[in-house]
């Protein structure tokens, strides 16, 4: 016997004469051996005849036969039959099918939309060439923060041996197509060093990229603009290359349109619309022109040389830094350069945080998807339950369990494929809505693309397989008698299957979890939106002075600004309100942790900001000039630590000692509560001290004015006249608050619809299962009523049985929500993670929806004529 006989079984099985062919091959082999042929040669001859036989069998009938044979071979014809059969069955229950498909389609639409946003903003590698070799150049001392003085960047760039360095600086400017400033729009501009764009692979779709020759002092200012800006502002005109556009009123020449795939290593929310050379910074933004001694801060990126390793490049740049800055011992752990990958938005030091956020986002939308899949599973389970006799008969006639399982899976895939198509259509509408809610700049191109389609397909297939698990088990059990007995039992008084009950409980648990999360976020957003800030934010402007400005500039600017007619008041403060840089004083007292925010300002700050001094007085100019040890405290501090007496005259020594050094201070006044820091940093109160006479960083000039726009222009003009070489940045303080409120609003805007969708899906699930179960129990209902049970008794019985899984799911989901909200309490500013109103409203919403879904079918069942039911058998 040939050693290859086993192979013949595999290759010849498609032939109806496979056994005869195998026998003839074996006989020929035997003859060859009998004629003296060696076993190896005989096997070789056997293999050749086998291959030719298989070829003849597979390709005997031409392409049509091949096609149909292939279909039969891979059971695709069976799948098509299952799909046709499944479609006919589901058409018999159109409303349930439509509801289940629509629910899953909506959920898939949400998932695909979220994927589109996450993919575009977090997973795409910025459109750069060879992104794996692009890194950010950061400081070890500042935890990898990649910002350096321009002079330091130039030294590192000139002396780096293992990497090529380039720099950038992001600003917001007014962009217009006319010198007069009509139709100007505010957009971000990225000022870049000469080789930045070409190093990263930013090839334009039209024109030429910025070159090193554009980044020299005296060069004609030229810019590249984004594809989006080109289409909106210049109507996508290819002849726009060479035109003049205006940035902050300064003319520049347009030399290129950037292709839309390239964004450079910039966060999606900060994507620039314009790229300009750093040499044009003074002309466009104002201030002093950059030179080799400039201290202006720039962001530094690098591309590693092909042979260089990350560690070697770090060592090289650290050695350069050691020469540039004051030498430090090699053992100093805070010294040196740290390189982090910029291969994608989630690479490098942000990887853990980014992937955690992605996992959380998809976890939430995944829960909603699971809810919708549970509805599909319930629908299929109900359909399979009514076909138990069919299953039993087919098993008795010899159908394999694999065939039955395959049929269940194919039917499930049919439903989820239709839902997937619906979801893709839905996502085309939803993605632009997400863009508005998430407030991405227009440069971020968000639309479902090929990757989203592939993702949608995978999701639909996964849902189809997942939803088919329970009904497939019916077919996989293979027990004929059990199937037939179960059908006859189903014809009588059926008890809901544990699987269907589990699905309902799962849906209830997920719904209440998402409802609690959404309710907390909505409460937080409302709290932030209506919060009394305690100061007059609407009238305040902040004037930020660039680092490197000579000492005395700030005070001279203050005196000048106070003389501007539209300015009501002006003052200096070390850090602007809602700044992310804070000075906390932390300590523990009686087992409670306290955090006091320290603010340093001049005497005029309290009136300028509209802070209420409820007791005592503010600093005097003399006390500020002397940096006297006098302080004001907030009402919360006075209430907590001086509850029984007047805090005026007391000192900070009366407070519990802090974790760090606390400067001494005598309390001279009490200030009303004010939210000068982000809500999450509010802490337990505030301390106000005189501003330092000498500061490491320039202070912020706070300006109070009724007419903000007019005052901005007037202050800009005044400061430019005082020192034409400098142009401080003027911002509206309310914008910082709106950014913070925007985050809370954004989270609430995303969570609320997801929770409502989850509630709707769960309600549909409860309704569907209850309707089915009630229909299965009509005989039981009729018997009970015939035996004297009232409509109320029957209704109470059915409602109680249907509500039980909902209650179980509610308890489980609520427990999970309480745990998670406690862990994520930092994201829920201003609201307790166990807010009773939010939790109560969530429970009430689920109970009301579930009761409505249960009562409707129960009422129908309770109103039927028991005699008619019994006669109908």
């Amino acid at each position, binding site marked *: 016997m040939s050693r290859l006989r086993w192979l013949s079984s595999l290759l010849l099985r498609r032939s109806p004469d496979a056994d005869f062919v195998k026998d003839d091959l074996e006989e020929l082999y035997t003859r060859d051996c009998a004629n003296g042929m060696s076993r190896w040669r005989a096997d070789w001859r056997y293999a050749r005849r086998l291959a030719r036989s298989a070829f*003849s*069998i597979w390709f005997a009938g031409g392409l049509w036969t091949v096609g149909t044979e292939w279909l039969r071979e891979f059971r695709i014809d069976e799948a098509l039959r299952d799909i046709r059969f499944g479609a006919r069955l589901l058409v018999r229950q159109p409303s349930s099918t439509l509801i289940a498909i629509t629910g899953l389609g909506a959920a898939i639409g949400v998932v695909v939309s979220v994927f589109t946003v996450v993919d575009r903003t977090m997973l795409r590698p910025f459109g750069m060439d060879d992104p794996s070799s692009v890194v950010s150049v950061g400081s070890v001392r500042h935890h990898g923060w990649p910002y350096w003085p321009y002079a330091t960047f130039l030294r590192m760039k000139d002396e780096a041996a293992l990497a090529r360095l380039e720099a950038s600086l992001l600003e917001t400017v007014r962009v217009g197509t006319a010198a007069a400033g009509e139709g100007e729009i505010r957009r971000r501009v990225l000022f870049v060093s000469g080789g930045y764009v070409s190093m990263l692979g930013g090839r334009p779709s039209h024109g030429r990229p910025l070159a090193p020759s554009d980044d020299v002092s005296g060069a004609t200012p030229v810019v590249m603009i984004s594809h989006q800006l080109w289409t909106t502002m210049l109507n996508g005109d290819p002849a726009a290359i060479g035109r003049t556009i205006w940035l902050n009123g300064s003319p520049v020449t347009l030399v290129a349109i950037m292709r839309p795939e390239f964004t450079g290593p910039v966060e999606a929310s900060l994507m620039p619309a314009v790229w300009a050379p750093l040499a044009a910074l003074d002309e466009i933004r104002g201030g002093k022109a950059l030179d080799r001694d400039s201290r202006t801060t720039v962001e530094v990126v690098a591309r590693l040389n092909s042979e260089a390793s990350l560690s070697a490049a770090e060592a090289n740049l650290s050695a350069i830094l050691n020469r540039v800055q004051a030498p430090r011992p090699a053992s100093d752990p805070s010294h040196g350069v740290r390189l982090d990958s910029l291969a994608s938005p989630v690479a490098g030091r942000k990887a853990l945080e980014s992937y955690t956020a992605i996992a959380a986002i998809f976890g939430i939308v995944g829960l909603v998807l699971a809810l919708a899949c549970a509805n599909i599973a319930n629908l299929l389970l109900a359909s399979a339950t009514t076909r138990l006799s069919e299953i039993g008969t087919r098993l008795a006639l010899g159908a394999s369990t694999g065939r039955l399982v395959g049929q269940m899976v194919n039917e499930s895939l049919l439903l989820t494929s239709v839902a997937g198509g619906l979801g893709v259509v839905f996502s085309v509408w939803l993605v632009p809505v997400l863009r508005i809610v998430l407030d991405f700049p227009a440069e971020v191109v968000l639309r479902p693309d090929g990757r989203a389609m592939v993702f949608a397909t995978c999701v639909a297939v996964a849902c189809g397989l997942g939803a088919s698990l329970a009904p497939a088990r019916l077919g996989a059990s293979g027990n004929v008698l059990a199937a037939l007995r179960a059908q006859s039992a189903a014809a009588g008084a059926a008890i809901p299957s544990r699987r269907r009950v589990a699905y309902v409980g799962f849906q209830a648990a997920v719904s209440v979890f998402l409802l609690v999360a959404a309710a907390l976020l909505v409460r937080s957003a409302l709290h932030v939106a209506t919060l009394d800030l305690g100061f007059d934010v609407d009238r305040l402007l902040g004037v930020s002075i660039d680092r490197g400005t000579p000492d005395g500039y700030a005070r001279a600017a203050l005196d000048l600004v106070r003389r501007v007619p539209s300015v009501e008041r002006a003052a200096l403060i070390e850090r602007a309100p809602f700044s992310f840089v804070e000075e906390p004083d932390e300590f523990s007292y009686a087992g409670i942790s306290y955090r006091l925010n320290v603010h340093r300002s001049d005497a005029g700050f309290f009136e300028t900001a509209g802070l209420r001094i409820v007791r005592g007085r503010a600093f005097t100019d003399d006390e500020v000039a002397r940096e006297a040890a006098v302080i004001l405290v907030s009402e919360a501090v006075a209430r907590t630590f001086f509850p029984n007496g007047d805090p005026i005259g007391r000192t900070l020594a009366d407070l519990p000692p802090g974790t760090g050094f606390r400067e001494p201070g005598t309390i001279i006044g009490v200030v009303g509560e004010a939210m000068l820091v982000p809500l999450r940093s509010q802490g337990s109160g505030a301390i106000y001290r005189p501003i330092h006479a000498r500061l490491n960083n320039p202070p912020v000039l706070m300006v109070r004015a009724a007419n903000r726009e007019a005052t901005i222009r007037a202050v800009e003009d005044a400061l430019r006249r005082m020192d034409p070489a400098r142009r401080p940045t003027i911002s509206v303080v309310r914008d910082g608050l709106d950014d913070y409120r925007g985050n809370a609003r954004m989270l609430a805007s995303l969570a609320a619809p997801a929770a409502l969708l989850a509630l709707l899906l769960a309600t549909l699930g409860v309704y569907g299962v209850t309707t089915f179960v009630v229909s299965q129990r009509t005989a039981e209902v009729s018997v009970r009523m015939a035996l004297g049970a009232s409509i109320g008794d029957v209704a109470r019985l059915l409602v109680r049985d249907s509500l039980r899984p909902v209650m179980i799911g509610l308890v489980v989901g609520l427990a999970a929500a309480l745990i998670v909200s406690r862990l994520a309490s930092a994201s829920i500013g201003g609201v307790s993670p166990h807010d009773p109103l939010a939790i109560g409203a969530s429970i009430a919403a689920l109970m009301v929806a579930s009761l409505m879904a249960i009562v409707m079918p129960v009422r129908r069942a309770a109103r039927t004529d028991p005699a008619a039911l019994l006669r109908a058998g």
Partner: protein
Amino acid sequence: MLGRGSATTDYLGEFEQLVLFAVLRLEDASGITIHDEIEARTGRDVSPGAIYTTLGRLEDRGLVTSEVLPAEPGRVGRPRKRYTLRPRGARALRQAYAGLQALADGSLGKLAQIAKGS
């Protein structure tokens, strides 16, 4: 020789003609005997798969019939399939052979010259 107006439409390929002639010649035409006959008469080592596939096609067209015979000594407990030519198959084979003869009539001498290379 077939005249004009013949009603038959069963066209046969070259290999099908070989297989049918082998079935015609053999008293007991099965896969292995047909293989041996073709190999002996033509020198071609055809695969059993090709033979059975062709016979299956011919049977579907109604040109041959088959019957499965019980095992015989020598095949160690294995049955075999015997094929018989049907009248329709005979007509189709006759037509195909007649057509070949008609084309070849008078050309064999020229064929021999070409084969010699002169």
